[in-house]
């Protein structure tokens, strides 16, 4: 299985990345090499093997639903490059 520049453009869109034509060419070549290397996994029989998501012996971690101290508005907005009326500002979402 090999991927094309078109695949790379599609994945870039999903990943919210805008790639230059040079980047698209480089990534196509490099991702093919990496995925070809990853193909070695397909030769391994994993029938009946449970997937490992993480290694800890815990599942859900719950806490009481109580009100606690949280960030102030000022703190939350400290690193935002644009804000208005105490909110993060984004460009128009709807045309």
């Amino acid at each position, binding site marked *: 299985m090999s991927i094309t520049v078109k695949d790379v453009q599609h994945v870039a869109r*999903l990943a*919210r*990345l805008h790639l230059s034509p040079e980047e698209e060419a480089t*990534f196509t070549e490099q991702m093919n*090499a990496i995925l070809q290397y*990853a193909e070695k*996994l397909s030769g391994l029989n994993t029938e009946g093997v449970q997937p490992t*998501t993480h290694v800890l012996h815990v599942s859900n971690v719950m806490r009481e639903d109580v009100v606690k101290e949280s960030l102030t508005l000022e703190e939350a907005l400290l690193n935002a490059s644009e804000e208005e009326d105490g909110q*993060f500002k*984004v460009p128009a979402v709807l045309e």
Partner: protein
Amino acid sequence: MSLFQYRLSELHNMLHAGQASVSELTEESLSAITRLDDKVNAFLTLNEEGARADARTLDDKLASGASRGLLFGLPAGIKDNIVTKGLRTTCASRFLDNYQPIYDATVAAKLRQADAVTIGKLNMDEFAMGGSNENSAYGPVRNPWDLERVPGGSSGGSAAAVASGEVFFALGSDTGGSIRQPASYCGVVGLKPTYGLVSRYGLVAFASSLDQIGPLTRTVEDSAYVLQAIAGYDAQDSTSAKVDIPDYLSALTGDIKGLRIAVPKEYLGEGVDASVRETVLSALKVLEDLGAVWEEVSLPHTEYAVATYYLLASSEASSNLARFDGVRYGVRVDEGGGLLDLYLNSRSRGFGPEVKRRIMLGTYALSSGYYDAYYLKAQKVRTLIKQDFDEVFKKYDVVIGPTAPTTAFKLGSQTEDPLTMYLNDILTIPVNLAGIPAVSIPCGFAEGLPVGLQIIGKEFDESTVLRVAHAYEQHTDHHKQRPQL
């Protein structure tokens, strides 16, 4: 004589006895950075004024006779993917060039509670992705043993700062070898604790199921000291383990009689430099002389570890790095388009090539139609890799091998070929996939460059790992060698 020759416990006693002050230690660290860091490039941000103010406060505390924290007065560097309130944290990415954290990571808070002095933030591969430190947006760190060579990565700044004597200890993070491999290349002690032992709260996430914070130090005893201060359950991290924290220092008995060591044949085989193999075999001889016994074993799925890791870590990264959208923090490139353009332009401008490559790989592996073949398959192989270790640990106390297949390579020699670069991590990655602890300690030199010995233990058995490392260190002097800068 330099204060950098002393162990942390010795400095602790000297401070107590009035033979040194916190301000002296802090100035020694700051002046070393002024003298050396133009060459090494380990620091991204210095906390000069903050460190001096903290030092004065701590000296007052010393004079007043108040009780002192475990790391009292010791100047430290923190890898720049660990957030520090009010102290710029960049992850060595252009994306976060101006980021001012509004809270402390749990480990940063613990250093403060332990009365350590934060000297500054350390260079790394961007978002901890890389094994050479060449992926930093602020230029590569250079290896103190040979400035033309890489320090390893991604915690290259942490390893180089400790090796060159700029700080007394440092914190790093390890996702696939990012503490141990640079420790090996720079000739220092680097410990990756068991997954869940040290809180990840405030560690900018790369691959959440693999990331773990740990210390880089000059000696094993120092490593135990720092681990003692940072280990422990934290409700802020939902993957933090509720385990009792032992006294790591009391584990350093020097006694390893009867210890059973497994040496995987895959760790000394093809791809491992002959000089590295010889150095590791001599280290095993030292352990043997101390009463340990070693046997060759097999970890049969080792050859699948790198492929498994790059699929899983990249997938987790592609999800974790979705938060960098140009809205709440970091780079914002608004060229008058809509919201989607804001995302596309900000991310494309802010991330470097390796970060983009991994986001692309991860997005592909998780995308519709490929999920089962790549992501799920890799999760299953992860189980097999973990079972390899479980099997070996039924009969043996530790697993030992080299930390990396080679010594530090030349800057620029592998940047064109990501796959070759990824294969440098073949001996460290399986440990992260299995979630178990491992330390890299200096075990000699090959052509003037440090070689690291990797000691891997059972989950939450840092005590045995450190005991073996310490016993070895007591009978060798590799850790006392210093680079000439």
